[in-house]
């Protein structure tokens, strides 16, 4: 079994976005970058599958990212059990849109006959949740998205996918692209010795030219970044008597805010 895990380095979830005024640029210089939290579920799932199958399984972590992403590949992928890593280094793809990303990832993935391709449910910076299904289309294979349980059989898979008010069970043939959701597993943390050893695992750095690919054109452009609409200051309801406070709140919600 050959597994590929697509991982993205993203600004951590504590990140505050400071925008004095709407504008065409977002200042990303102060961001602390980490592995996209959903991709940690993808990495962990790959490692658990390998642990079940034994030696007959190889995990390749793939990222499109700048030199900063090397650390993520090492610490969060190789040190927790991925066997090798491939990074596509193209400055032009920094902040690429998902379809550009998917086209380049597909080119990387076509070079290996992967049975299973794991991605995160979505990247928490652009919040697109697009790359996984796009990869499945470009590779003409099965997909299952927002997966909380994954079972593999001989050439087939069964995935439990989160949907409104319940779950859908998707069954299909491998190869498949599976996008991973919280609940799938509990990601392990890398140990210090494993981080040290991770540096010895094979790592390949490619450009689009190496893949025989022109840098895919963007289909969209962000013209303006703006802060969220401002909110008026909170109106505190006097709370000395909880029952009176509750009645006053109910009244305000009905008569002033008109939301109930």
């Amino acid at each position, binding site marked *: 079994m050959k597994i590929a895990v697509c991982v993205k380095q993203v*600004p951590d*979830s*504590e990140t*505050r976005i400071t925008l004095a005024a709407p504008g065409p640029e*977002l200042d990303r210089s102060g961001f602390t970058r980490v592995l996209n939290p*959903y991709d940690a579920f993808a990495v962990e799932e790959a490692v658990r599958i390998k642990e079940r199958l034994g030696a007959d399984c190889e995990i390749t972590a793939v990222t499109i990212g700048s030199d900063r992403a090397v650390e993520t590949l090492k610490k969060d992928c190789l040190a927790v059990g991925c066997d090798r890593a491939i990074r596509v280094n193209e400055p032009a793809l920094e902040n690429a*849109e998902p*379809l550009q990303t998917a086209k380049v990832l597909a080119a990387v993935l076509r070079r290996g006959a992967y049975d299973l391709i794991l991605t995160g449910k979505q990247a*928490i*910076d652009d*919040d697109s*949740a*697009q790359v996984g*299904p796009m990869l*499945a*289309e470009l590779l003409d294979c*099965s*997909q299952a*998205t*927002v997966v*909380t349980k994954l079972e593999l059989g001989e050439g087939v898979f069964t995935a439990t996918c*989160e*949907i*409104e*008010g*319940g*779950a*859908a*069970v*998707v*069954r299909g*043939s491998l190869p498949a692209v599976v996008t991973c959701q*919280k609940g799938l597993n509990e990601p392990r943390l890398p140990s210090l010795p494993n981080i040290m050893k991770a540096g010895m695992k094979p790592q390949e750095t490619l450009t689009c030219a190496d893949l025989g690919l022109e840098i895919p054109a*963007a*289909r*969209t*452009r*962000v*013209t303006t*970044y*703006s*802060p*969220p609409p401002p909110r*008026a200051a*909170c*109106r*505190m*309801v006097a*709370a000395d008597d*909880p029952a009176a*406070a*509750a*009645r006053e*709140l*109910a*009244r*305000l*919600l009905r008569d002033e*805010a008109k939301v*109930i």
Partner: protein
Amino acid sequence: MPNIAVYIEQSGGTAKKVAWQMTAEARRLVDRTGGEVWAVVLGDAAGAAEAGRHGAHRVFTASGDAFARYDAETWTRALAAFVAARRPDLLLVGATATGKDFAPRLAARLDAACVSDCVGLDFDGGFRLRRPIFAGKCYAEVAVEAPVAVAGVRPNAFPLFAGGGADAPAESFDPGLGGFAPHAAVVETLTSAEKKIELTEAEVIVSGGRGLKEAANYQLIETLAAAMGAAAGASRAIVDAGWVPHSHQVGQTGKTVSPKLYVAVGISGAIQHLAGMSSSKCIVAINKDPNAPIFKAADYGIAADLFEVVPALRDAIAALD
């Protein structure tokens, strides 16, 4: 003169609310710019009859056994066939589980622009779509620079059509599925036994956090939610503690919601929680710590013990006439 196609997602023979919200917004837009709104229905055409009333000019349907159960590949092919035949400039798809599953796949097939989770729609010679990024900490205006775009639309972002639309003529189209067999499909749908209101679709949400002290007290949240016709949500702290399933989690790594009213009970207001709910129209915070950050995001606050306020609020709401 853009033509906007709207995918009408149905479940159990009725259209999802977001389908008519998108239809309405598309209609408001083309009423300014010229162009038409086309409702596209796959499989059971029950919902098609209503489309005109919600603002559609025309309805296109495709039927057949292929649509008896959902799979991303069949939906992708059928809608790609529609786009190839009719050439809409924009296809709107609700940002539901199903919509998010196939829309990006469809965009890849069409080599189209793809924009997720839009909350604003405009046209000035090209489409401009507004969407939250970084879980709502920032908004991006996205210009479409391709002949066709697929856009996901967040539920509850747009009001329904008030213009009293006319009946829309319906015609069928060929989804081009002859002999096609998908690699994977939904084989079973598991819905939770109790009929709960889905968080992302709810107009009112009551969420509880660690201030509830223990799992059994989450029932306070459920009771208040029931009294308000609301869905019940949670902070990550109590999801991680195992009090409620992850499907309840609101926040950056949970659900992003924008109901009319969001009531946060015993939730401190960590940046990751705010990320998932700060676009709610009205936010109420109940927290005994007057300095809790949640009050900075709220419209109304009560700084008091939730164990006293929540039951009283339930009674007060029940007493409203």
